[in-house]
Structure formats: C-alpha cells, structure tokens
C-alpha cells in the first residue's frame, strides 16, 4: 500500500508520515503540488494521495481538481488547519477532508480505511 503525502511544511509532513508508517503504509513525499503531479505522472505506483490544503504554488484543493481533470482517479484526502467542513462543501468530490490536529493519529487511519473500502 503506497501513499503519496503532499505538504510544504516539513514538520507536518513528517508527522503525517509517522502516523502512516505506524500503520504499515509505505510513504512517498512531495513538497508541493507540482512535485506531486510529477511523481504521479512517473512510473511509481501509488494507491492514495494525502495532501495539505495550504501550500504555495498550488493549493491542495487545486491539486485535487487538476488531478481529476488529468483523469487521475486515485482516492484523495485533504488535510487542513482551517475549516474542513467548508472545504468539503466547496469540493464535494473530495474523498475526505480532515482537520489537522493532534487527533490525526487516530482519525486518519480510520478515514483511510473508510475511503479505501468505498473504492
């Protein structure tokens, strides 16, 4: 199971990766949306994208829209420090939108399971 983690903030990225690796996932990292698209366009296989919302160049939500327009249908979970409900409302096609806080450790694995079982 391979997960692509997209986050410009190294701290937050490492924290997310720590949660995922703890659950036995293999992680690939991207610092921004451009890098994420390059990785996805390359050969590496990926089963899930987890992206931060607030990033320079391309925001998480724009990344999601761009990927969908390119025909990439991988499940996509958006993380945000601001307002997950608002973003979910803005983009209902998102597989999930989560609030980035200390509960991420418990919630993220549950949500991943739900998202993957829906696919």
């Amino acid at each position, binding site marked *: 199971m391979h997960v692509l983690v997209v986050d410009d*903030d*190294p*701290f*937050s990225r*490492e*924290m997310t990766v*720590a*949660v995922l690796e*703890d659950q036995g996932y293999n992680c690939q990292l991207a610092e921004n949306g451009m890098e994420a698209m390059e990785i996805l366009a390359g050969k590496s296989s990926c089963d899930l994208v987890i992206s931060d919302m*607030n990033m*320079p160049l391309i925001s998480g939500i724009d990344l999601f829209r761009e990927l969908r327009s390119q025909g990439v249908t991988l499940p996509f979970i958006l993380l945000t*420090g601001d307002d997950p409900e608002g973003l979910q409302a803005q983009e209902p096609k998102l597989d999930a939108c989560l609030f*980035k*806080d*200390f509960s*991420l*450790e418990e919630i993220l694995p549950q949500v991943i399971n739900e998202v993957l079982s829906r696919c």
Partner: protein
Amino acid sequence: MALDIKKFISRFVEEAREHIKRLGEGLDAMNRDSVDSENINAIFRSAHTIKGSSRMLKLSAITETAHKLEDVLGALRDGSLNYRPELGTLLYRGVDAIAGMVECLAKSGDGAALPPVDEALCASLAQAATGEVSAVVIPPPSIDLASDGRQLTAEPTSPPLATPAPPAATSAPPAQAKLSTSDTVRVRLAKLDELIKLMGEVVSSHATLRQRLLDLRLLESDASPQHWEQHRARLHHFGQTLRDDVQNQELLMDELHDKALIMRMLPLAMVFDSAGRVVRDLAHSVGKEVECAVSGAEIELDRQMIDKLSDPIVHLLRNAIDHGLETSAVRLAAGKSSQGHVTLSARQDGGWVVIEVADDGGGVPVEVIREKAVRKGFISAEQAAGLSDQAVVDLIFRPGFSTSAIITDISGRGVGMDVVKQNIVDDLQGEVTVETRLGVGTTFALRLPLSLAVMRVLLVEVNGLPFGFTAQYVDELIRVPHEEMLTVVERNAVIIRNEFVPVVLLADLLHAPKRLVKTTRSQAGTFDHGMLLVVVRVRNEKLALAVDDLLDERDMVIKPLPEHMRRLTMVSGMVITGRNELVSVLHAPALLELARQMRGQASRTEAASHANAGGAAYRILVVDDSFNTREIEKDVLEAWGYHVTLAEDGMDGLQQARAGTFDAVLTDVEMPTMDGFTLTSMLRQEEKYRDTPIVIITSREKEEDKRRGIEVGADAYIVKGDFDQSSLVDTLRSLLG
C-alpha cells in the same frame, strides 16, 4: 498509542524558531517600508504553519495565539485592514508571546508545562483583525510596580493589552531577557573542504622532507676527505633546499592554523538575532517606544567569546532602554520622533571586532554624574571640577555607580556597568568605551581581540622547569637587589613606586621540585644581580614572583588542558615550545589566591606568637590608595593583635573615621581625592581625633615633608624604605602607651 508525540516537540521547536525569526524580519520590513504583499504573504504563511504544527502537538496556547496573529495578517493581506504602527506593535507582541512559549517548550520539552494562553492579547488581536485597532492601547506600565505587591524581576513579563491588568504572572509566558547561544558549531562545508585540501598540501610537503632525509643519508655516505670542497658545496645546496622546504612548511602550518581557528568561529548572529525581541520586551515593560536595528551579525568570532558576549550585550541594551532613551513625551518635547532607536552593530577593525550599542536618547548627563560621584565619595569636589567630561562619564564603570533616579526592574540593581567592564576586559581581554552627547545619544563600544587561542606568553624558568604567563597578567619585570627586600610578617615584600608588593618565590608557591643540576644561567640570575621578579597583576592586586630566569616571550597557541586535568586551577593551559616541550601556562588569579592563603596562615601563626603583645583592644584605621600596601599593613597589624579597618584614600578615610572610632590612624601621603596631609589636618579639627595618634607612612624622605607632617599634626612619620614590622609596631606601641 504507538506514536511518541514528545519526539516531535524538539522538531517543532526548531521549526517554530525559524518561523518566529521570519515573522520578526517580516514585521521589521513592514515597519520600515510600505506594505508589500509578498512579505505579508510570507509571514502569514509562517503564522499559519506555527498554528498548524502546534495544533498537531496539542499546544493550544501557541495555536490560539498563532491563529489570532494569522487572522490579523490575513486581513492585512486581503486589504480589509490597513497597516499602522500601533498594529505593528501589537503584532510584535503576538510574535514575542509565541516566541516566549516556544522557548518555554524548548526548556521543559513538555506541552503540558506550557502557560495558559494570554487571553487579553488574543482578544486584542481578534479585535484588531476586525479593524478596531484604535481600541488597542498598550497600557502604560505602572510606575511603582512594587506597590501592587508584585515581585520586581529582571524578566520582562508580558502584561496583557487593552484590559485592566490582571496579575501578569498568570498570563505571561516566562520570557527570559537573554540572548540565545548554542552548544554546537556549524561549519560551512566549503570551510571544511579548504582545510582538507590544505591537509593534503601538508602531507605532500611532509613527503618532500622525507626526500631530504634520503638526500642527507646519500650525502653522508658520499662524504670523503678527498672531495671535501665539492662535498661542502653539496652540503650548502642541501641546506638551502631544506631551508626553502621549512619555509614552505611554515606557510602551510600558519594557514592550517588560521583555517582551523576559523572552524571555532561563529557568526555574531548567534547573539544578535534575538536582540530585537529582547529590546521590544524590555521597552514594553518600561513603557517606551523603541525600534532596534541590527547590523554586522555576519561577523564571526571565537565561539568562546560569543558565549560570553550575551550577558554584557543584554546589559547594554537594557541600559540604553532604561537610562539612555527618554519617554515618548520627553522626546516629542525635544523635537525628536516619539519612537526611540537602539542600534546594535558590529564591524571589524584590524585585529579587533568592535561591537557598538548606540541609542539616540538624551545622552549621559555629565553634571548629574559629576555631582553624584562627589556625593558618593568617589572623588572630591575639587577633583570633580578638574575632570574632563569624558573622565566623568567613565566613572559609570566604577562599582556601585548607578544614575537612575528610581530603581527600576530592568537595570540599576547594584550590578551594572562595572560588571560589563569586568566581563569584557577580564574575561575577553577586550576594552569598553563610552561616547555621549547631551541630547543626541550615547554609544557604548566593546572592542574584542579576534582570537583568544593565540596569546602573548612570557616563559620563565624555576628550578630548571619552564613555566608560562599570559601577557595580560604581567605588569612588569624587574630585578631587585637583595638588600631592598623587606621582611614583613615572615615574608618578603618590595616597594615599587610607593607601593608594597609581596614577594614570593615561584618555586615555593608551586612546590616545584628542585633539580639536582641547576643551570649555570639560573644561578647567575639569582645571585649576582639580585632577585628577578615577575610582577603579576589582577585588577589592583599585585604579586611579585621571584623566578630564576626569563626564557622567551612570543605569541603562542594556548591549548586547553585535557578533561581530566581541568580541575587544576593553577594552570590555565599548555603551550608547546620550539623544542617540543610542553609548558604549563600559570593562571595568575589562582597564584594570587594561593599566595593570599599562605599569607593568611603565616599571619595566624604570627598572631599566635604575639598573642600577649597587648595590641588586642586597639582599633586602627589604615588609609592607603594601594591595595597591596593596605593588605600588607593590615597583615602586620593583625599579626600583632590589632583590629584593622581599611580606607582607600583620604576622603574614604575621613568618612570611615567620622563613622567609627579609632585608637590610631595610619595614612599614606600621595592619594587621589585627598592626600594624607589634608586628611591629618581635617582629622585634627574633629573633636574625636584631636589627640588620636596619627602616623604618616610614605616613601617620601624629604625633610620638608616631615616638617609638613608635623605641622598638620601627625605624631610620627615612617618612611616606607625603613619600614619593617618592628618599627611600625614599636611606634604604635609607644604612641598608644
């Protein structure tokens, strides 16, 4: 739960510090220039990141503050809010509050130990985000902080904004007014590469020397008396080549040495970077508006110095804010901007680095200092009138001097400029100067030598063993005939320019083992021309150390002692001589301390032997401006059972005499502020001292001086050259009856 949150705390602290620095710089830029959207965007992101990361670690106080900060910055970014200086001040407070909490976290490593969020600050920020910045006022700090029962501390707390002040302790993060320094050295890779490249050259140069050795062996085997002339030519050529090689090697070694020293260097940024925040914290706590500009932070200094610079610089910044800058009202009245400016700058000047702390405040009030110096008895009124303004300003470096009319919680608490001077001069071998212009401002300059590791060293010999002294402690080298040696309380002393200086054989002090075979040179040194003395000085205390011979004096690399020998207080480091000999560099302050202990023991034995001498009940006042002379006279008198009080000059003596009661007074003649003759005649005018024995002790041996001494009312006149304990004690005994 498998995930260890604590592991991430230090990671967070590291990252948050970066963002805090960026926020500070961004706010500075906003303050300086017009508002630039790219800049606002960048600092908005920093606030946002801190908010997000702290939330993941459940550091809610940080999250909350960062969130509010982000809201204000967001409003600025969207243009729904316009930048104003008052808003800047508030934003700085927000950033500083976060910085305080992050540092607290860095110390405790536990999110639970974080103080609760500063509600008032958050409320002010929230209000500001809606555009109601006019409602945000920074409350003037109450002048008498002590009266509301709060402890005065040197730590600037963060009193809440815009609300009636609840006790600050509950809401303020413990922000220390301390500049941060680090434990590790970061070395640029390029520097390390240069060093490695240089090592390569040293290795190849070494190979050349090996080749020379082979050449020499060849020369040796070819040597035959028949071809002597030809052989000598070859030998000469060999010598020249070897000389070139050695010179080349020397250049490499020098370069290697320099490059290696550079590895120890750290940028001043280590100390300077947090200055802006310290200044704002301090300024806020005294209710002044201050902007701090920093330059030269890229200059590098030995890390040992960087560590020691933090305290003096904080003190100077405090001083500038507390004493230097006026309040806004005073500034406006003087036609200045309401905001004061403090500049912290560094520049290189030859082999020195000059660090300046400048303010554009009112300048040092020279007349106030002059008056105060007289009132405090540092100098006499006549002397004060004669001093140049600069000399008067320099008085602030005297211990116990403080110019603040009211004692505030920032500076003026007993320790002051004298401590700064001591740190810079004694610990770092630097200099401190102050320049001031009334109404324009004050600049303190710290001059620091660029490297501490290389110092001038004097090498001496004792019992055939070499020892070193660092030059800054060596006052002078003199040779004194044996007959000029005085014996006072079973030990030796010499008079150097009107001052008693105790003499100790360095060999005795160190218990240096005697060598069976002494070098002829050292014997000649001791016997033929008297004693060879190295006079060491630490502040005003002197000690003359008798040595056998002087060996060398030059710049040497001082190596620290290995870990297991660090507790040897007598030795401050090692140097290696040209002959590859290891030499201990003696630590002068420790030698003085040891000599003092030995003296103390001697005095006690002496005192015991004179227990019946009968001096026990008498109280004697000793007045002399030389520390060393005072101490020796005190030793002598105490050895005979007298109670001794010391005074540093005539004025001090007069005050002491008035304050207490003494059975006899011993005074020197030449002293600053008031000489011994004046002191004597003044004392004679006092009812208490009309008939008290007064003994003048001096190195002047002129008849007219003696006459003058008697005219002003002295009972006895002892010339220091004749001084020995019996003459002093006999004189006192006969006078006291």
